[in-house]
């Protein structure tokens, strides 16, 4: 049985001091400790971004792939190696912009994965451009000098519409609560989505206010999609809690054992 800190790999993060991603790392190690996770049987899969650097910092297997493709890599790995605990992690840019399609289809596919998005409403790694979750009038990016002027992407509402069977929102400033969410997400059979509010101190210093603004909203028992939809269409995006849990059949159905098979006879004349 390892302690939380023993789930750190010892590689020092390149993150800015105060970055929310530290809180997520902290929460993952705590969840692993609670799960008594064997390090060799867990794999963290990510794309590209500050947040996507996380796998290297955890004492487990990791795959740091290309931008936006964490979920397909995780899906292939989990389907091929169902006994592993596979967790995809990344940022809002990685997951909702370039990776948006995989997000939708992972929600429908319901492979037994956890997907944790560290949402700081910005592209941290490329120097602070607007991401899909950036507020419409945030005009700090040179690429959108008048703000993106678009309706922000609503990850939880979309996950629900796309068919995710576990939807929660955590806060990097509350690593213990987040650890519990991750713990439950791992235990949940099927695709579990956790949006984590994870401040970017460098490009969005205003997110320090989240400490005051984030509020608890527990719908732990909510397995009614209509009720969840009603809640998610109304809330301010800063509620943390379990919004939806409704286990449905996991894909793929469990495998038949592969034995000696004859693939050739059909071709014989």
């Amino acid at each position, binding site marked *: 049985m390892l302690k939380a800190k023993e789930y750190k*790999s010892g*590689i020092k993060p390149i993150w800015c001091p105060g970055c929310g991603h530290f809180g997520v790392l902290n929460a993952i190690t705590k969840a692993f400790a609670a799960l008594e996770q*064997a*390090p*060799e*049987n*867990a*794999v*963290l*899969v990510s794309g590209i971004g500050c947040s996507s650097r996380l*796998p*290297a910092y955890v*004492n*487990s*297997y*990791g*795959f*740091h*792939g*290309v931008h*936006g*493709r964490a*979920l*397909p*890599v*995780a*899906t*292939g*790995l*989990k*389907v*091929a*190696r169902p*006994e*592993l605990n596979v967790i995809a992690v990344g940022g809002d840019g990685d997951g909702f912009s370039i990776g948006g*399609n*995989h997000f*939708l*289809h992972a929600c429908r596919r319901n492979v037994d994965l956890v997907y944790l998005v560290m949402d700081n409403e910005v592209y941290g790694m490329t120097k602070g451009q607007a991401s899909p979750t950036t507020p419409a009038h945030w005009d700090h990016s040179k690429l959108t000098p008048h703000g993106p002027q678009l309706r922000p992407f609503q990850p939880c509402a979309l996950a629900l519409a796309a068919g995710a069977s576990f939807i929660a929102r955590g806060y990097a400033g509350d690593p213990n609560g987040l650890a519990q969410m991750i713990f439950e997400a791992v235990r949940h059979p099927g695709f579990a989505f956790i949006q984590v509010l994870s401040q970017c101190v460098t490009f969005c210093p205003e997110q320090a206010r989240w400490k005051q603004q984030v509020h608890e909203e527990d719908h732990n028992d909510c397995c009614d999609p209509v009720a969840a939809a009603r809640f998610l269409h109304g809330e301010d995006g800063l509620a943390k809690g379990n919004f939806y849990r409704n286990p449905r059949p996991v894909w*793929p159905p469990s*495998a*038949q*054992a*592969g*034995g*000696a*098979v*004859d*693939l*050739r*006879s059909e*071709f*014989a*004349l």
Partner: protein
Amino acid sequence: MASCGSGGGIKFYEFLQFVPGLSQGNGVAADNCYSAWISPVRGKAAVTTGPNSRHLQDDITIAFTGSGGSGVIAVGEMLLRAAARVGFYGLLRKSYGPQIRGGESAAILRLAPQPVAGFADGIDLLVVLDWSHFSRFGDELILGTDTCIIEDAAAGVRPLTVPAAVSILTLDFTGLAGTLGSAHNNIAALGYCGAWLGCSAEQLVASLNHRLQRQDSATLKLAAQVAQAGMGLAAEHPPPLAAPQPGRPEATRWLATGNQLAALGALEAGIRFVAAYPITPASDVLEWLATHIDKTGGRLVQAEDELAAVNMAIGAGYGGVPAMTATSGPGLALMAEAMGLAVASETPLVVLNVMRGGPSTGIPTKSEQGDFNLAVYGLHGDAPHVVLSALSPADCHFTLGWATAIASHYQTLAVVLSDQLLGQSMQVLPAPPAMPFQARLDRAALPPVDGEHYLRYLDTGSGISPMAVPGDPGAMYTADGLEHSIGATPSAGAGDHQQQLSKRQRKLMGLMQSEHWAEGVEQPEARLLILGWGSCYPVALEAQSCLEAAGVPVNVLGVRLLAPLPWEALQAQCAKVSQVLVIEQNHQGQFARYLRGFGLQCHAYHRPGPRLLTALEIQQQVEALVDA
């Protein structure tokens, strides 16, 4: 397989041992028969010397055309199956109009007493059920003056483009079927041609039953009657040309498409994960895999797009499970970024690309060899990887097996280039020998000796680093597409970069020693080498045989290992002759340009599809060169 070295960890991923668990079914042949099987047109292994055993006189090409539900494709398939039972080898290709269904179509069938891997230039016997839109096939159905045409009485107005000189026989297939209460003139034509080829009624009926499996018995019975009536007609009015003679094959023979054989080869070599996004003409590879991979304990996932497909395969490959995807040009282009990830992170990955006409959406249902450049050069940065080409429909089996083994052994990307012609042509072939390849990771150095740090990207002598997979205790690491040190931590240092770049290039050099890099047939006193790749190879062999008949001995070489190119071995082949002619079916001569980049002095003959490259035009090119 090298020992995994760790006791406890192994149990729950035993399949990593890659025991495929497949019985080899019928017609298992010894390993050393493999190459005989692959290049069915000729005799022995690797590069053989001697006369090209293919005699043009023995073969026949039959085409059926019709439209709107006239079922000529079905006739082609049934006739091939029946003729095979009589002892013919053969090859069938299909051609369609742009309509999704019910459009005009043509089935082109070549039969011979020994294996055929390519098509002939002309049509010997053309059976026309409907003349309308015949001109659409002008590029593909080339009528010579000795072509013999059988037209249905109801086929409509014969186009003016049909040369007056050809002999034409009008037969009332429609009426014949009609008298029996059937609308299927195509079945009457089947009976007619079958009888001419020497098929028995049982053989034809067996083909009918195979094809019409899901129909009720009354339908089957009626069809049998119509076919028999067609046979009767053949007795009365045989086609005005001699029937070809079947062979006396002893070995078990198969009927399969190149795409099916590719899929089979992949599974037999150990592929246990497939990610799929449909695209013509690769979909049938994926479909065959979908209906068979479960039996091997493997999995197929239908992905949301090609980006997902290739990344899923990478995920499985990272997990130590041999994985592949199959696609065609547009899909391959979409996979380029992730293919670079497989190279940089050294993750085994097989990508089968079944080429169609390009660029862009191009001509999706027709064959062309235009994706050479993309396959060899389409990754950003310096990204050495493996590109193979399948040299015949049957060779799709061998090449996919080889690619699967290479990808795992070298922890690399292996792209296989096939094309619509290889992939979708249906071939009668000797049953392939047992698959000689198995996917195996080089895991010799795992886990690290106690106290040592596991170095995933170690620069070993061979260039192949020790690859752990999740589940291996004590060897946890993060695979990365960022440049990294030997210990798998990201690095922007010039030394690490140079080391990993060189290592990734060097590790593939081992492949250069492989005897599988090419197939060929040499002739004594040849002064010229015809050099091709992919589906051009059988055509070149055919041209060789024609040239032989014309007194011009040439060598033929089909290159299977396109990248990294075994340049020295190739040079040795080229040194045997005074001229080299590179042939390929694309507009820019992509392969020839590539070879020249190595310093090869060569002539090049290339032109785009969809018209197939023919032996005749190659023969003419060679003759022009030899004369000059």
